[in-house]
């Protein structure tokens, strides 16, 4: 057990090494600046390495097994409705509180106010940001739900992804310019570090539990939907308001 953790620590250190090297080389050789606050940086590096090692250990003990056993339990229970409600709540619940999304939504509200799309008062901006957050959360919930239906039915992934891309392109043509960059970025920020392993394990677990599905071809793809639908929904939000 001890030995395994030490190994994990070493692994995490080598995972993080490239970042330290890039930052160090640019600081010292390209920008020719001294490295400030050496104690802070050393403590920070120790924290990052320790944190990554703990996270990966915990992942295999908790998030993966939880996602998989729940997938099996739902498959055995044979209740499609509850599975879909679970899928939607997982997507919606984890996204609504996502800090990266909160930051993006506030930024978007500021841009909208400067562009004169909404009034430049605090309450209007807050309403706009809140509305945007719930739009994205709803779209992620919808994405996980759709992805679960796909796994159950065994549809090929690209049957849904390609129409999604076409949807993004069509929306881009009509959406206001100011929202496009934010909409595209919102696709990438919605899926947090804790949600991803859970959702992946859920998809793979479902695909293994349902006969006739292959965990490799059918199990992945939930995250892909969760990063595609927010783009479409955010552009729609920008058009309506």
């Amino acid at each position, binding site marked *: 057990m001890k030995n395994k953790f030490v190994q994990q620590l070493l692994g995490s250190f080598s995972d993080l090494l490239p970042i330290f090297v890039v930052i160090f080389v640019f600081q010292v050789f390209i920008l020719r600046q001294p490295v400030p606050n050496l104690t802070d940086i050393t*403590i*920070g590096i120790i924290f990052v390495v320790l944190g*990554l090692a703990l996270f990966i250990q*915990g*992942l295999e003990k908790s998030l993966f097994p939880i996602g998989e056993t729940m997938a099996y339990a739902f498959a055995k229970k044979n209740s499609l409705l509850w599975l879909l409600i679970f899928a939607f709540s997982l997507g919606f619940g984890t996204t609504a509180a996502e800090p990266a999304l909160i930051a993006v939504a506030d930024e978007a509200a500021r841009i909208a106010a400067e562009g004169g799309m909404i009034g430049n008062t605090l309450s209007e901006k807050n309403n706009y940001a809140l509305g945007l957050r719930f739009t994205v959360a709803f779209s992620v919930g919808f994405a996980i739900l759709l992805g679960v239906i796909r796994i159950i039915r065994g549809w*090929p992934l690209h049957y849904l992804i390609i129409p999604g*891309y076409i949807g993004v392109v069509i929306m881009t043509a009509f959406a206001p310019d100011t929202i496009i960059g934010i909409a595209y970025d919102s696709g990438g920020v919605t899926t*947090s570090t804790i949600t991803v392993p859970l959702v992946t394990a859920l998809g793979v677990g479902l695909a293994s539990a349902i006969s006739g599905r292959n965990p490799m071809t059918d199990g*992945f793809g939930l995250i892909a939907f969760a990063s595609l639908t927010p783009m479409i929904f955010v552009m729609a939000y920008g058009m309506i308001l």
Partner: protein
Amino acid sequence: MINILHEFLSVLLSTLRDVFPIIFIIVFFQLFIIRRAFSNFKSLMIGMIYVILGMSFFLVGLDKALFPLGAVMAEQLTSPEFIQPSTDQSISIHWQDYMWVYIFGACIGFATTLAEPALIAVAIKAEQISAGGIKAWYLRLAVSIGVSFGIALGTYRIVTGIDLYLFIITGYIVVIIQTFYAPKLIVGLAYDSGGVTTSTVTVPLVTALGIGLASNIPGRDPLLDGFGLIAFASLFPIMAVLAYAQFADWLTRRSTINTPDKGN
């Protein structure tokens, strides 16, 4: 020391707050819908504590060691003093002047993606269920190369001011074409790897680079042009993973064609 402890506690609290809705949903469905106690409850609890503590250490560490330096660096690399435009007219800029920015973007995109915990998780899972057919390390390497290329191209776009959607739409077309030729097993994983690349480590550094770049180049609006790097970083890994699978497929096929030849 007290300072760090204080920071750690506040990050721990906010991590707990982020995890709370997830735990609430899981516990609710487990107890009321599935109606069964958790098996292995103790191990799950320990694992959850590891995850929460790990995330908190990770975030505090990033905040102490990497983000301040990375943000300052992005600002310095894009500042007019460092760039020293090759012409005297301050209005006309040449994209070549920003060479170090592209190189930095590519390096930092590559390095942060390699350390992204969500990607590590997906790669571990993929290696497990493909029974080792997909190596976690190669997958992460392919994704990192994709992000690195994406960020470099994304910074080039900010400098030149070409419309974001032109790149994205072209990217989609390439991805769709690749999908039809790639081995079916990899497609889901490839699409997923686009979404997981950009989270805890990559987003703050890359956003700093985009905003720094857009605010220092005349004619760019940081609020409008600063965005879009994340979109690049989520699109290019899909291509990279599909290409990796095609390449691996081609290698296996070539070796299986060659093996019987040797027998003859």
